[in-house]
C-alpha cells in the first residue's frame, strides 16, 4: 500500500490488528463496523447505550498518565472517534485457551441464552485488570436469563492477573500514531479547534458522544463534519487549588469519579447515580451541560455548588455563573462555535461559615442509570450558631431547565438550621415550581419530592432525628 494513501486514512487497532477506516464510514458506529467486518460476537441489543450487549474494551488513559482498559458501548461510538485507538472485542481476548473471565463465567453458569454474554465478558475483562469486583463493574450490562447471580459470582471469583498475562503487556505498547482526516477532525489545542471552526462552520463538536451517538446509532440525523474534542489538551486539565476546583470539560465522568472522589460529596453521589459505567467512561461534564437537558443530573449539583463555566470561542474566553447559563428548554448562553472549556467549583467559604453540608439525590423508576423523575442537590453553609449563612437548593426535572429555588434561598439566609425552618422551607417548596406530569411521575408527586428530598437532606445533616 502506498504511503500517501495510508497516511490520509484513519487507522485503529482491532484485536491488535491494524484496520483502516474508509472515509465514507466515519459516522458509522464502531458496532456497525465490527459486525460488518466479521466480529459478530459483539451484539446489538438496543442501539441506545442502555443494555451493554455491544460492550467492547478500548485502551484509554486513566487521567494519571497510565493506560488502562475501559468498557464502552460500541453502538454509541462513531468510527471517527476510534482513530488511533486500540479496541478489543470478545474475539480477541482468548489467547491461549479461554481468558480467565471466560473461564469464570463458564464455571458459574453465567451464560444462558448467551446474547448478553460477550458484553458482560468485556465489562468483566476491563474490571479484571482494574481489580474491581463489585456489581458496578457490570451495572451497564443487562441480562434477562440468569438473574445476574452467577455473573456476580464469576466476577467475585476472579483473582489477580498473573505477571505474564499478555494483556498487561499490551497496555504498555505505544498507541498508534494519530492521523488527521477530512470530515472527522482531531485537533489537539483550542487554537486548532477554532481554526477548524472557521473553515468548517457547519461542523459539530463531539466529545464522548453519548448523546450525539444516539442520533448516529438511530440514524435520526445526518452530519457533515465532526470536530472531536477528545484530544484537546485544554479540555483535559484539572486544577485543584485551595480556592477552587477547575475540571476540564472534556474529562470523562469516570475519571472525575476516581480522581476527584471525596472533594464534593454531592458530586460523588450524583456521579454514582449517573448512567452506567460504559457511559461514564465516555460522557463528559461539558457534554452533559452542553446538551442542556432539563433533567441533566449533574447540573443541579453544580448549581448547588455555585459553579461557573469557562467558555471559549475564536474571539477569546469568558467565565459565566452556571446559574445564568440555562436560558430555556435546551437553550443556553453558548454562542455558535463556542464551547465549554471547564467547570469551576469554588472551595472557599465565607468567613463566618463553620460547616458546609452538601449532598445530592435522584429519584427515578429504577434509581441509577435512569432518567430522573426529580434530581436534587443542596448546599447549606452554617455558622457556629447553626444559622444558615447561605443555602443553595437546585433541582432537575421540575422546570424547563435545571433550576434553583432562589426566593427560598434568600428567605433561608440567617435562619436557624432547625425543624421550624425546615417546615417553612417545605411549605414554600411546595409552591416554588410548577413541574409537568408525564409517564415518569405526576406534577403532584414531583412537587412532593421537591420538598421531601430537602427534608431528607435536613435529617441527614442535622442533629435532629426524623
Amino acid at each position, binding site marked *: 500500500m502506498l504511503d500517501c494513501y495510508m497516511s490520509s486514512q484513519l487507522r485503529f487497532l482491532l484485536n491488535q490488528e491494524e484496520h483502516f477506516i474508509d472515509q465514507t464510514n466515519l459516522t458509522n458506529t464502531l458496532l456497525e463496523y465490527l459486525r460488518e467486518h466479521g466480529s459478530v460476537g459483539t451484539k446489538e441489543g438496543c442501539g441506545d447505550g442502555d443494555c451493554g450487549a455491544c460492550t467492547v474494551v478500548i485502551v484509554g488513559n486513566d487521567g494519571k498518565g497510565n493506560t488502562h482498559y475501559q468498557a464502552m458501548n460500541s453502538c454509541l461510538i462513531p468510527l471517527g472517534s476510534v482513530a488511533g485507538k486500540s479496541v478489543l472485542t470478545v474475539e480477541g481476548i482468548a489467547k491461549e485457551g*479461554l481468558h480467565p473471565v471466560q473461564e469464570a463465567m463458564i464455571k458459574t453458569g453465567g451464560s444462558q441464552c448467551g446474547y*448478553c454474554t460477550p458484553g458482560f465478558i468485556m465489562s468483566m475483562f476491563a474490571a479484571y485488570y482494574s481489580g474491581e469486583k463489585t456489581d458496578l463493574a457490570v451495572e451497564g450490562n443487562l441480562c434477562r436469563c440468569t438473574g*445476574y447471580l452467577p455473573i456476580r459470582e464469576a466476577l467475585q471469583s476472579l483473582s489477580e492477573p498473573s505477571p505474564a498475562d499478555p494483556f498487561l503487556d499490551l497496555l504498555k505498547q505505544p498507541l498508534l500514531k494519530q492521523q488527521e482526516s477530512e470530515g472527522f477532525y482531531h485537533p489537539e489545542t483550542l487554537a486548532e479547534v477554532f481554526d477548524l471552526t472557521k473553515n468548517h462552520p457547519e461542523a459539530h463538536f463531539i466529545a464522548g458522544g453519548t448523546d450525539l451517538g444516539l442520533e448516529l446509532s438511530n440514524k435520526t440525523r445526518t452530519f457533515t463534519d465532526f470536530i472531536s474534542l477528545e484530544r484537546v489538551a485544554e479540555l483535559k486539565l484539572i486544577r485543584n487549588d485551595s480556592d477552587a476546583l477547575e475540571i476540564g470539560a472534556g474529562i470523562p465522568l469516570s475519571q472525575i469519579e476516581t480522581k476527584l472522589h471525596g472533594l464534593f460529596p454531592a458530586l460523588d453521589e450524583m456521579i454514582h447515580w449517573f448512567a452506567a459505567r460504559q457511559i461514564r467512561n465516555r460522557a463528559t461534564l461539558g457534554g452533559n451541560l452542553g446538551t442542556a437537558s432539563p433533567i441533566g443530573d449533574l447540573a443541579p449539583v453544580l448549581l448547588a455548588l455555585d459553579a461557573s463555566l469557562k467558555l471559549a470561542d475564536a474571539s477569546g474566553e469568558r467565565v459565566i455563573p452556571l446559574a445564568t447559563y440555562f436560558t430555556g428548554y435546551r437553550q443556553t448562553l453558548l454562542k455558535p462555535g463556542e464551547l465549554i472549556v471547564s467547570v469551576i467549583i469554588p472551595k472557599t467559604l465565607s468567613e463566618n461559615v463553620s460547616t458546609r453540608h452538601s449532598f445530592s439525590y435522584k429519584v427515578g423508576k429504577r434509581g441509577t442509570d*435512569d432518567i430522573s423523575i426529580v434530581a436534587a442537590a443542596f448546599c447549606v453553609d452554617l455558622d457556629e450558631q447553626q444559622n444558615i449563612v447561605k443555602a443553595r437548593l437546585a433541582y432537575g426535572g421540575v422546570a424547563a431547565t435545571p433550576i434553583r429555588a432562589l426566593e427560598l434561598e434568600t428567605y433561608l439566609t440567617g435562619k436557624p438550621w432547625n425543624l421550624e425552618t425546615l417546615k417553612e422551607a417545605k411549605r414554600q417548596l411546595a409552591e416554588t415550581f410548577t413541574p409537568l406530569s408525564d409517564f415518569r411521575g405526576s406534577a403532584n408527586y414531583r412537587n412532593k419530592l421537591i420538598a421531601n428530598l430537602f427534608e431528607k437532606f435536613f435529617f441527614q445533616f442535622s442533629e435532629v432525628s426524623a
Partner: protein
Amino acid sequence: MASASIDKPNADKPDTKYLGKPRKIIDGLEKIAGRARYVADVVVPGLLHLRPVLSTVAHAKIVSIDKSEAEKVPGVVAILTAADLVTRDRTITSRSDAILAKGKVLFVGQPVVAVVAETEAAAEDAAELVAIEYEELPVNSSVEAASAEGAHVTWPEGLPKGELEVISHAEVEEKEEVETGPITNHYKTSNFNRGDVDAGFAEADAIVETTFNIASQYQGYMETHGCVVEPDALKGGLTIYTTTQAQFGVRNKVADILKLKRSNVKVTAMTVGGGFGSKYGTIEPLAATVAYTINRPVKLILQRGEDLKTTTPAPPTQIKLKLGGKKDGSITALKADIVLDAGAFAFEFGQLTGLLLGSNYKYPALDIEVIEYITNKTEMGAYRAPGAYQSTFAVESSIDDLARKLNLDPVEFRMKNLSGTDDPMANGSPWPSLNIKECLKQMSEHPKWKNQSKEEGEGIGFAVSAWPCALSPSASTCRIDGDGTVKVVVGSTDISGVSSSLVLVAAEILGISPNEVELIQGNTDVGPYAPGSGGSQVTYSVSGAVAAAAEDVKIKLLELAADQLEARVEDIELLNGAAQVKGVPSSAIKIGKLAQIAESSRSAPGPLIGEGRSSIKQNAPGSVAHMVKVKVDKDTGHVKVLDYVAIQDVGYALNPMLVEGQIHGGVVQGIGMGIFEAHVYDSFGQLQSASFMDYALPRTVDVPNIEAIQLNMPSPEGPFGARGVGEPPITAGAAAIGNAIRDAVGVRVTEMPMRPPVVWKAINEQS
C-alpha cells in the same frame, strides 16, 4: 450465593451417574467466546435488507403512500405496500395476517410499508423517505375508552381471530361463549362459576374488596425479533432462519399464510437470545411474504424501538377482587372481575388468567368473569407464565389482607385453604400432583421467616403460586457413530439450556459420558416434531422422547454386543462407553466399535439408530413459595429488595444447575415486573416506554441475594419425575414484594409495577 436441594421423604429418586447432577451448559463455550450464531449473524448469497415502515399513529385511514423519494435512494430494490404482496387478497383477521396494513392502521408500530435494499443503511434511509398520509380516526388507548358508550369500533366488519398459540402454553378447557348483537370493541367474555357466592359472602366474618391495576409489561429478551428468509428455487418454498421458541409453529404459520405446503417451508431456529413468551412468529410472516413476493432473500432484524412497538407484550390487566373468610380460617367465597386490554388483535390468555386466578385455593364458591376489549395498541401476548403473575398479585395481596383482617396467621390461613392434588381448579378439573402447601411449609420453617429481623422501613412478605405447565407429544432419534459419539436429534429449540439436560438423559441410559453426547437441534425438515419452548414444557415433554430413543438404540446395541460376545442379551451391560458381559471388563467392546461393525459388516444389522416418542397425558404443575425482604423510603416511595428466598417444587431436576438458573432468572424478572417495568401508552396511543431507558429492567445492582431451594417431589408421569420449571419462579415475586411493602409501611399497593410514585401515593393516601 446460598442454594439448596431438598429431597422430600418418599421421593423415589433414581440412582444416577449423570442425571440430577449439576452440569454446565453444553454450548456455554461458544457463547462465552462470542461464537454462538444468532440470526443477525446469518448471511446468505444475494441477501437484501428489509426495513419496515411502522405506523406513527394509533388509528387512521391510510390516504396515500408516496414512495417516489424513497425509490431514488441508491441501492433500493423494492418498496412494497400491502397491494404489492402476494397476500394482497387476504383479509386481515389476526396479527400474523396483518403482514402490511391495508387501508387502515390499528396501532402505533404496525408495519405499513416494506423497504428492501442492498444494504441496511440504504433500506433505512429509504424507509425514512416513504411518505404516508393518514386520516386519523378516534383512538381507544385504554379499556375505558374502548368500552365507553359510542366508542369508535376498531373492527366494524368482524372481530379478529385467535392464533391457537395458547395450546403451546397451557392446556385450558375451552368454554366458548357465542357473541350476539352488534359488534363493539368487546372481544370476549369467559366465566368460571361454582357454588353460591352471595351466600358465601353473607356468612363471611370479613371481606376484602380491592381493585388491582397491572401495567402492560414487555418481555425484554436481549435479542430482538429477526429472521432471514431465503426463497427455495427447487421446491418453490422458503427457508427461514429465525429466533423463535417454536420453529414448527413458525413453519405452519408462514406456510398457511402463503398457501404453501408446510413441508416446503423449512425453519431453522438459530441460537435464540431469549423469548419469554414473545417469540412465536410475529415478524416471520412479513419477511417471508416479502421474500416470496420478490423472490429474493431478505433479512429483517428489528431495532429495539421497533421491537418495543410492534411485538406482543403482556396485557394491561385490571382485577377487581372480592374475598370473604371466616374467623375459623376458612375462605367462603371469591368474586373476581378481570378486564384485559387485548390490544388491536386477539389476546390468547384471558381465559387462562381467570382459570389461574381461581385455582390455587379451595374456594367453596367462586364467580370469575374475564372480559377482553380491543384497543389501539399492539397485540398483547404471553410473558412467562401469562396470567399467573397478574392473578397471583391480586390473590396473594387479598389473602394477606384478609388474614390480617381476620387476625389470622398468614401462613396458617393459607395452609388451611390451599389447593392440593385432586382439588378442583376454577373450571372444576382436578389439579394433578400439586405441592404449593409443601413449598409454603418449607418457607415457614426457614430461619429468615421464623427469626425475622427488620429495621426501620423494612418489611418481610411472601406469596405462593403455581403454574400448571403444558405438555405436548414429541419425538427424537438417537444414533451411535463409529467414533463412539452419540447423536441425539430433537426438533425443539434450546432457549435456556434445555439441550444440556437432554444430553444427560441419553448419557445416563447409554452409560456414556455426557461429553460424548451431541444434541442436534434439527430444523423442521430434519428434527422430529416438538412443541414450542414455552409453557414450561420442553424438558418435560421432550426428555421422555429422548429417553425412549436412547432405550431403543440401547436394545440394538445390546443385541449386537451379545452377538459379538456370544452371550445372552440379558447378560450384557453398558458401562463407560462400552458394552461388556456383566462383571467381565476384559470383554468390553467400545460402542463406537460396535457402531463400526453395525455399519460395515456384510451381515451386520445396519447402523445403530433408535427412535423414541413421548406423549404424556398429565400435566406436572410447579409450585412456589417466595419470601422477600424490602426497604421502603417513605419520602420518595422508592423500594429496594434486600433479600429473597425462592422455594420451588421442581419434581426432579434433570440438571440442578440449569433449574437453579431458571429460578434465579425468574425471580429477577419477577422483581422487575414488581417494581420497575411498565409498558406505557399515552392517550393518543403513542408508546412512552420505547427504549430501555424508559422501559427500566433490573440490573445487577438491583438484585439481592437470592436463596433458591429446590424441592424434589417427583411428578407421577413426568420423565424421572420432572416437572415444568421455567414459569413457576416468575409467578409470585411481585405479590411477595407487595406483601413485604405492606409489612414495612402498613399500606397496600394495588398497582404494579410498584414504582416510587405509586408507593408514595399509597403511603400518603392510606396512612
